[in-house]
């Protein structure tokens, strides 16, 4: 009787965290004026 082959569980591929550019932010002075 042949033993059933052990199957390896597929490892979950680690996703690289998404890195966003600082350009997405709207900069704001203390006075409240927005700059982009």
């Amino acid at each position, binding site marked *: 009787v042949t033993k059933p082959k052990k199957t390896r569980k597929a490892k979950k591929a680690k*996703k690289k965290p*998404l*890195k966003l550019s600082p*350009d997405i*932010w709207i900069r704001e002075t*203390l006075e*409240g004026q927005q*700059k982009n």
Partner: protein
Amino acid sequence: VAASVEELVFDLSLDSLSEQRDVLKDMRARSATVLTASSIATSFVGGRAIDTVGLNAVTGAAVAAFFLTLLPAIYVVAATAEGRFSIDGAQLYAALAPREASLEDAYLALAAEIRSARQSNRLLVERALWSLRLGFGALILEVMLFLVALALH
């Protein structure tokens, strides 16, 4: 209610950033309050004290304290430091669209970005709070000195 863990993380991060922004908004309002209170105190108590006693060490110190009360308002207007409190939607789309990121990935990336923004905003908020504390302290000192000058007369 958040539909996923990622959304929950993003919502909580966004809340913390909004709270930080609210602190700055309060700061602006309070610096105007200090300015108003200081002007009223100087024109009523200060004017009377200087009329009665003249310009001596006590009233001179009170006048110096009055100038310090202007500090928070000047700081709010003149500070060049910038904070990050809101996200430009178009820029965000331009960053996310080419990578074909899923909504969950976007939530997590934004949560990380918000955390870093909150940390970099901290110095701005702390400086503003210190200027306000100094302004309030100077206001109390100013009023007390003018009252002492009147009482000693």
